[in-house]
């Protein structure tokens, strides 16, 4: 399979800070590459280099075979960018925002208008199209922002934390749109702080920390590497916590973490949760919650790097 985005040894410094300390990454054509990392890891800087917004201090990157520095114009013909902040003109209406992009891309007035209507329809914004976007909700703005990125039918789409700040429903809707795009052969590079998002969407993952790649692989490989899912059992009555802890310890073979509300343990055997439930039912313990969740980004980080995600500043140098 072809590689559409390929970066080797990218370095970018801002003053004394090294935002990128030699980053390699590759996205296969028509797939989603997720770049996972905490704030300050260098995700946004990497996207800005790949989107020709800033030049790297070292290393090189090619998009669709074109160099992002020497052939920036050709790269721009292939890409579209949806940043962390919905980059729409708030004083213009939804329709005007989309027509503006279409006209800049060389579409005729009629074609730009048609494309705008089409996208507004697709993103369920048809009714709001004539309203100034400052009246839009956060989710509507993000949808319009994504629609604006799709006006020119890009072959490569950069999504910089596209769902940060969205409610679960809006997030799910956006995930659906991203899946449809790759179905059409679009290559997507997505940055995220959410392990779950990466797991849902990504074909490949790159985990970066403090400007360096700390892990590469498919979501399954990475999960196998960092381990397991987390089982959390919360009894209806706190008095049953010791029983729950004993059952989980016996079945998982390791000491679980016990808080005043729940018992949590890392598990790798999928047969374990039903077994725990069975034992607790036999012991007549009423269970309020039994959940199995993906390791959080922090847990992935801890497993990969031995340290927790630092509370660094936002990695967008421009505030």
């Amino acid at each position, binding site marked *: 399979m072809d590689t559409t985005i390929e970066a080797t040894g990218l370095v970018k410094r801002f003053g004394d800070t090294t935002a990128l300390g030699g980053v390699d990454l590759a996205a296969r054509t028509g797939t989603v590459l997720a770049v996972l990392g905490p704030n300050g890891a260098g995700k946004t800087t990497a996207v800005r280099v790949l989107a*020709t*917004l800033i030049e790297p201090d070292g290393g090189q990157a090619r998009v669709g075979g074109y160099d992002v520095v020497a052939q920036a114009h*050709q790269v*721009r013909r292939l890409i579209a960018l949806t940043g962390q902040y919905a980059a*729409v*003109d708030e004083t213009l209406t939804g329709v005007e925002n989309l027509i503006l*992009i279409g006209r800049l891309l060389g579409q005729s007035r009629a074609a730009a208008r048609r494309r705008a209507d089409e996208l507004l329809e697709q993103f369920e914004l048809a009714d709001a199209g004539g309203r100034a976007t400052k009246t839009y909700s956060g989710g509507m703005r993000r949808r319009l922002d994504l629609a604006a990125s799709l006006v020119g039918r890009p072959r490569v789409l950069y999504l910089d934390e596209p769902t940060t700040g969205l409610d679960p429903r809006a997030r799910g809707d956006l995930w659906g749109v991203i899946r449809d795009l790759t179905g059409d052969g679009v290559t997507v590079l997505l940055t995220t702080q959410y392990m779950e998002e990466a797991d849902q969407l990504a074909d490949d993952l790159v985990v970066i920390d403090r400007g360096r790649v700390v892990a590469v692989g498919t979501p399954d490989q990475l999960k196998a590497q960092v381990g397991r899912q987390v089982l959390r059992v919360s009894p209806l009555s706190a008095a049953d916590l010791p029983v729950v802890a004993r059952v989980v310890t016996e079945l998982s073979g390791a000491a679980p973490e016990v808080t005043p509300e729940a018992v949590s343990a890392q598990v790798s055997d999928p047969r374990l949760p039903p077994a725990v439930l069975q034992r607790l039912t036999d012991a007549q313990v009423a269970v309020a919650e039994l959940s199995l969740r993906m390791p959080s980004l922090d847990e992935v980080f801890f497993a990969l790097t031995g340290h927790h995600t630092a509370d660094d500043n936002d990695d967008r140098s421009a505030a």
Partner: protein
Amino acid sequence: MTTITHPAASPPAPVLQDRVGPLDAVRHALTLAWRSLVQIRHNPMELADLSLQPLMFVALFAYVFGGAISGSPKAFLQFGLAGIITQNALFLTMNTGVALNTDITKGVFDRFRSLPIARSAPLAGRILADVVRQVWSMAILLGVGTLLGFRVQTNPVSVLAAVVLLVAVACAFSWLPVLVAMLVDEPEKVMMLGFVVVFPLTFASSAFVPVDTMPGWMQAWAAVNPATLLVDAVRGLLVGGEVAAPALGALAWAAAIGAVAAPLALRAFRRRS
């Protein structure tokens, strides 16, 4: 606006142009100027800024200060309209900085810069739109001034020259608010420049009163103040008087401000992106 139809970018494009042609660059600038002017339609505040504020200034200056300064509103306008027009033009340049800062902080600029359009287009579009704004509000000031008794003593060519001179100086001066826009994190902070620079600049000048009524130290400043030079030139072009010397002085100031502020602004822009 020209309508050049390209087929929608059709995948997969085998060979892509490696740069933007000059015609396309003009088209991009015009499109972005259109965008900047459409904003006015949706933003009543800006429309008020461009139309009501100048109108109010003319009426207030003429009827409040006119009698005291010149004996009658009409007599004052004959002297002071050039000053009002100049002050208004310099104030309008703040909007350029505010709009630019908004575009940058909201990420709109990033979107433009990631599009295959001429690198000059966002700035050129903005400047084009600002020239339209400037000319629009000058027309209102001259129109209202004339209604209230102001009379051009020269000829249409001189009036046109005054407008061109004002636009040219305002364009260069606008690099100052643009520079500030690159350095601050909120658009509102650009407006501060208007109060700490444009107010003292225009009031301590020949804009509204003859400078010989001022204390000596202020006269010394007023004599070299770029606002005085610009006002004197505009006044000369509208109602007669010396033009060449103050116009050259104003243009020299404009060139100096542009030469210092423009590179600093561009450097600040590269740093913040």
